[in-house]
């Protein structure tokens, strides 16, 4: 009898401790989540390297843009980030390219420094392309060379389709979403496999901050938008010279998928970076820059008269 009472007492204590720990974990998690939302949009390291940033009102949206310190000469090079990860993940590439070019890295509305309240709608790929067009004009540029990563390629494909005059050249790195694996589960599986290969220089900490800023509903909603926007439907109409780039180990953007996309583009070339993974712009920014530099130089030269 006494034993049963003691046993129940112990169970009660364990339950109370479990609930206590759970509450503490939730409180700590919420606090940490809030802290992450306050992270400055430019990392201290990039800031020291000369990367500046500014906010602008573009239509209904308040957008944040990073810019390299070099004086503008030639066409600007604009880097567009991937899904949920903001332009902060593009900073190493911006700094590498910034030695030769004027580089701008906007955060798409809803992400990073351009975060929106949860009540704001989830924007489709076409809407994001429209906003980018407005952003370009607001910044006083007619044309630019655009460099996109993963989901950013989808936005750029829509931009190049709708506003061909804004696109002098296009670099699409690891374009999503492979039409043979266009489901949430398969994309997430591929993403997980890729993150294992990038463990040595993982952008995981950055991704958590950007998820906190974007919010889970917007992240998942944009993922749906990504799956509902077939990039191949835009690329057929893209006339700008396009460079397609992928890492040889990238499971998110297989070689076959890139070949398919190259076949759709009238003026395309392809580069495979041996040993590279999906988030080349973050993990191997210097090699990324080195690989695309001849293409950028050619476009700049062709556009010199402008």
């Amino acid at each position, binding site marked *: 009898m006494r034993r049963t009472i003691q046993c129940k007492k112990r169970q009660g204590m364990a339950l109370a401790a479990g609930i206590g720990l759970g509450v503490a974990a939730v409180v700590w998690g919420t606090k940490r989540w809030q802290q992450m939302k306050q992270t400055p949009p430019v990392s201290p390291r990039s800031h020291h390297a000369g990367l500046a940033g500014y906010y602008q009102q573009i239509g209904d949206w308040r957008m944040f843009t990073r810019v390299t310190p070099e004086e503008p000469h030639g066409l600007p090079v604009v880097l567009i980030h991937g899904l949920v990860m903001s332009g902060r993940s593009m900073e190493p590439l911006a700094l590498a390219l910034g030695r030769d070019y004027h580089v701008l890295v906007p955060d798409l509305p809803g992400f990073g420094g351009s975060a929106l309240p949860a009540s704001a709608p989830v924007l489709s790929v076409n809407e994001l392309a429209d906003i980018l067009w407005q952003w370009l004009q607001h910044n006083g540029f007619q044309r630019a060379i655009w460099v996109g990563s993963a989901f950013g390629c989808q936005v750029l494909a829509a931009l190049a389709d709708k506003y061909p005059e804004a696109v002098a050249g296009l670099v699409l790195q690891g374009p999503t979403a492979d039409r043979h694996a266009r489901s949430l589960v398969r994309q997430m599986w591929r993403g997980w496999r890729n993150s294992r290969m990038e463990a*040595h220089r993982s952008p995981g900490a950055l991704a958590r901050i950007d998820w906190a800023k974007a919010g889970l509903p917007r992240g998942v909603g944009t993922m749906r938008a990504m799956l509902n926007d077939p990039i191949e439907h835009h690329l057929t109409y893209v006339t700008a010279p396009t460079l397609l780039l992928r890492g040889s180990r990238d499971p998110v953007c297989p070689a076959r998928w890139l070949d398919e996309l190259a076949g759709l583009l009238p003026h395309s070339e392809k580069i495979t970076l041996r*040993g590279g993974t999906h988030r080349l712009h973050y993990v*191997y*920014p*210097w*090699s990324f*820059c*080195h690989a695309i530099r001849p293409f950028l130089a050619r476009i700049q030269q062709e556009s010199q008269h402008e």
Partner: protein
Amino acid sequence: MSKPPKGIARFDSAATMLLTLANALHDRPFASPSQSPMLDRLLPSFDRLPIRLREWGYAVSGLAEGISHKQASELDIEGIAEWMVSTYPQRDYPAAFVGATNGALVHLAAAMGTPWLPQTFLCPVRMQQNDPDDAQSGFEEGKAVAAALLATWPKLAVHHMQDPSQDRLLLEKMHDFRLKLRDMPLAFNEFLLGGLPAGATLFINHCTRQWPVTRTSDRSFFQFGAPGGATENEYLRGGPRVAEYLARAGVDRARWEPPAITDHVPDAEWGLDGYLISPLKKLAEAQRWTLMEIRYDDPEALSFVVAEIYRDWYLAAGILPARLTVDSFLLMDPWCSMQQHAIPFWLMFPSVPSADALQRFLERQPPFNHIDMMLYSHGTDSIGLADIDRWKQLLAFAREEGAFVGVDETRFPHDFSTFSRFDSALRERAPLLPVPPPLSVDNVIAGIQRYGARHGVTLQALT
């Protein structure tokens, strides 16, 4: 520093020299060469065991470094390259070295505060049972593993190495494969692109030392024997020293019978595979780096040149160098040598030719007040091993004191704990003093040009 990934042996020249240099660039001693505090603690008590048990333990510890045939087919070259570059501090460098493994070069790089990316590393693959003296079966068994390794990276060259004289203990349970990178892995490219600004200098360390091999494909070779105590002829055709060695080891044969020689290619451990030069040239031209090639045949030739460069470096800083530190194979700590204002002299192996090289050096130098000497123990009385008395004679060149560092003279060449002991022992030999400002690229170039010709070391601009 993170643990090395599977497929690269830690107890090997390339990995150890990489780590010792990385530690020097982080401004710290090479305190735990094994990267395992537990092993460091265990090794001294291990030395008290009877000789047979010690040999067995040495073989087992080597086994722990090996990978299986299946793991060999999944070797992650990018991961290994990533680990290599991750050991160095991330910053801008005025220069970098790429290429052949060499202890003297590591000292040079340490004095300059610059990194070195090795072309070669050792990948030991476990075998059920292996007869170190049966070259034919080793050659046949290694082919399948070599094929698996070749398939992991299209620009990899595989040198299957069997040296029953110097690697006897380890060969009983595994096969040694030296892997050479004929192109730059992405991680190497990334590291150099990010760390070398335009105008920096990239040095290729080109050791042209060759060894007769049996070629099995464009990218794979079987090398029987290695530079050290025995000659090429002795490995291939035998001789009195081989017969005596085999009799001593209780082996019922008078000589080894390796497969027919088809080619002469760069030595598996110390030589440079020239395929790497072309991608480096392209990279250097695109990045506006100066590409220089340091070329020599005898790996120890560079030790003479680096010792002279060190002497000039100290003298220019107002330091009169009167201490010599003699490294042995992978027992070296450039951080410590620099802090003690010692001139380093790296020896490839504790063999007679290396002892002769040291003697030649000492005979032509003003006498040193102190000589500190490490001695590597590989666990076998291999052909051409210089005995402890020969090393003592060399220590006698010191004007005040010549001493072994971390060496148990009675146990050499079975003194395995020297690996965990040598660095702390070396640090106790002399006070640690401030290091002169880093050696400049110009001084290195001038030094090699000035002293190189005498020792067969040349320097050539490739871009």
